[in-house]
């Protein structure tokens, strides 16, 4: 394995920025550290780089414990959020910097820089200064500079944060291709769940300094280990229901009690795509009004309101929408295909650590 964290913690004064985080990254993987700002993900990245020292736990790179190894000797490539290009050096000098430090031969340096300029589509820009480059170019120089000395790991802190939306998309695809070609172990920090889902092989999700879940994009999306992850990755409808007469109810919606005693509450969550809609009022068990339709391209987001005033979010594809032939203000019928129990009142588990279980209603009703 390439990188391993064992119960790593970091405390700044009284603030526990990272608590007991353990995970491993395999050689050649592309891993995203995802979470809201202040979640501790950047601190984890900086600890791997050696820019911060853990206050607890052990950190391994390629089997070697590196807690006490200085940043210079870790052989990592780090791409800073603001790129941190050397303003007084040209693109060429920026990329050559690490090679000069490592005392490469002059001819080898020139060859390596040329190779990287070509690989990164920066031909002819070698003699420019950072301020003469566009945002996307600066970012590529920053990555080229980090990769030049052939690091064992490439670390990127919010690599796409500083560029505009269109270039962002191009850079994402470019990073995936680059990783595919070079196959260097890569870890990047992001607060954008879409970016993490799209780019990485695996995602490590942080919140308030704790590791919430680690898994493939599909795993964290389809099997979130708790409500925090479920809410953070994608949209989630959350209902708080009261148990009466063996059923949990909210307005006209009712679900099984799932073993919750009478009078207590049950929290459930379901994805917008789990809501099935029909123009035929008799087809599904619930009635609702179509309040708003948002066009998102190939997908549409719908907002439904039940007669008792509950608002639910649904998502359907364009073909399905066209087939239904509905428009804003129409009465429809709907059902919820699958949902998750988020928490039961009286359980020792807190909301965020409770393991949600997926309940399919297809056969239950």
């Amino acid at each position, binding site marked *: 394995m390439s990188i391993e964290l064992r119960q790593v913690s970091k405390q700044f004064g009284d603030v526990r920025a990272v608590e007991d985080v353990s995970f491993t990254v395999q050689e050649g993987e592309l891993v995203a550290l995802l979470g809201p700002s202040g979640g501790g993900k950047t601190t984890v990245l900086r600890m791997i780089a050696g820019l911060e020292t853990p206050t607890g736990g052990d950190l391994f790179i390629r089997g070697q414990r590196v807690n006490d190894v200085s940043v210079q000797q870790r052989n990592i490539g780090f791409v800073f959020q603001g790129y*941190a*290009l050397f303003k007084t050096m040209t693109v060429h000098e920026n990329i050559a910097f*690490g090679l000069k*430090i490592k005392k490469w031969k002059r001819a080898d340096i020139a060859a390596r820089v040329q190779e990287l300029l070509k690989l990164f589509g920066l031909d002819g820009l070698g003699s420019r200064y950072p301020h003469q480059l*566009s945002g*996307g*170019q600066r970012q590529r120089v920053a990555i080229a500079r*980090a990769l030049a000395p052939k690091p064992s790991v490439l670390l990127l802190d919010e690599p796409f944060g500083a560029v505009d939306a269109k270039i962002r998309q191009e850079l994402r695809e470019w990073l995936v291709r680059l990783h595919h070609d070079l196959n260097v172990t890569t870890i990047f920090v992001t607060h954008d769940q879409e970016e993490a889902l799209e780019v990485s092989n695996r995602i490590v999700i942080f919140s308030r300094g704790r590791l919430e879940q680690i898994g493939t994009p599909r795993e964290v999306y389809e099997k979130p280990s708790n409500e925090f992850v479920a809410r953070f990755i994608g949209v989630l409808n959350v209902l708080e229901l009261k148990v009466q007469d063996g059923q949990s109810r909210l307005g006209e919606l009712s679900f099984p009690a799932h073993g919750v005693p009478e009078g207590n509450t049950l929290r459930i969550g379901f994805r917008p795509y789990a809501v099935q809609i029909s123009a035929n009022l008799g087809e599904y068990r619930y009635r609702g009004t179509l309040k708003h339709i948002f066009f998102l391209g190939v997908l549409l987001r719908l907002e439904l309101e039940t007669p008792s005033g509950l608002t639910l979010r649904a998502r359907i594809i364009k073909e399905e929408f066209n087939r239904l032939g509905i428009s804003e203000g129409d009465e429809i019928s709907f059902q919820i295909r699958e949902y998750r129990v988020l928490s039961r009142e009286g359980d020792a588990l807190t909301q965020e650590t409770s393991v949600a279980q997926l309940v399919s209603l297809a056969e239950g009703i």
Partner: protein
Amino acid sequence: MAGSAASRLTRTTRSQRGTEELPWVRRVLIGIAVAFASLFLVLPLANVFLQAFSKGVAHYFGALADPDTQSAVLLTLTIALIAVPLNVFFGVVAAWLISKFDFTGKALLLTLIDLPFSVSPVVSGLIYIVLFGLQGYFGEWLLDHNLKIIFAIPGITLATMFVTFPFVARELIPIMQAQGSDQEEAALTLGASGWQTFFKVTLPSVKWGLIYGVILCNARAMGEFGAVSVVSGHITGQTDTLPLRVDKLYHEYNQAAAFSVASVLALLALVTLGIKTWLEHRQTADFARAQSDPSAE
């Protein structure tokens, strides 16, 4: 003074209708400001050169060629040559400390570095008399060992160092704080040592601010009067710096000669201002290039 380049640039880029004064108000305000500046800035400056040449060019250069004036020039240069490099070195070290690290007592340290700014020049000289004067703490010891600090070059140098102590640090700290530590950290991740990082990354990126600090420190070192006056002893041809020479000539009722020597110092001030303006212009230009739309790939 340097950090305003950004706003200076954006200032004129848009229409300001509705937030502008009436033209006549504007003209009156400009008029008063220019009149005040002319009276207090331009007139005194012009007067220095006019009085210096009041008895003709020959007299002017004669006054400058006077051996006592020549030795004052030499002494002033010598002292600046010792005091300025020492303070520059200190300024760079202190700026690194203050701008790159967070530690308890940083605010206090900053205040202490600023201290010499708020001490009267006369007091700045006096404190060295308390230490090294005949009745001072080390007075007898110095006498026994036949060493002279007060009324000699070391005393003048020390007083000058005290007065110019904060200049370089004060100039560098805001610039280095604004730049943050990203570039330095990037250098570290690429394997650079602390020294390599400092000399290849930090120093080049603050060079204009450093130059400015040096010339300001130098101008003050060469022009200091009060502190030097207290510790110099005013021995003509030996411990008179240029400003002290001006004072002496003035009290000898040699007005024109006093102004001749003063004009050299005024010229130094003008050159200092010229370099300062040029440096600011450079920074603004650098900033303009950094801001110009680079999206053309």
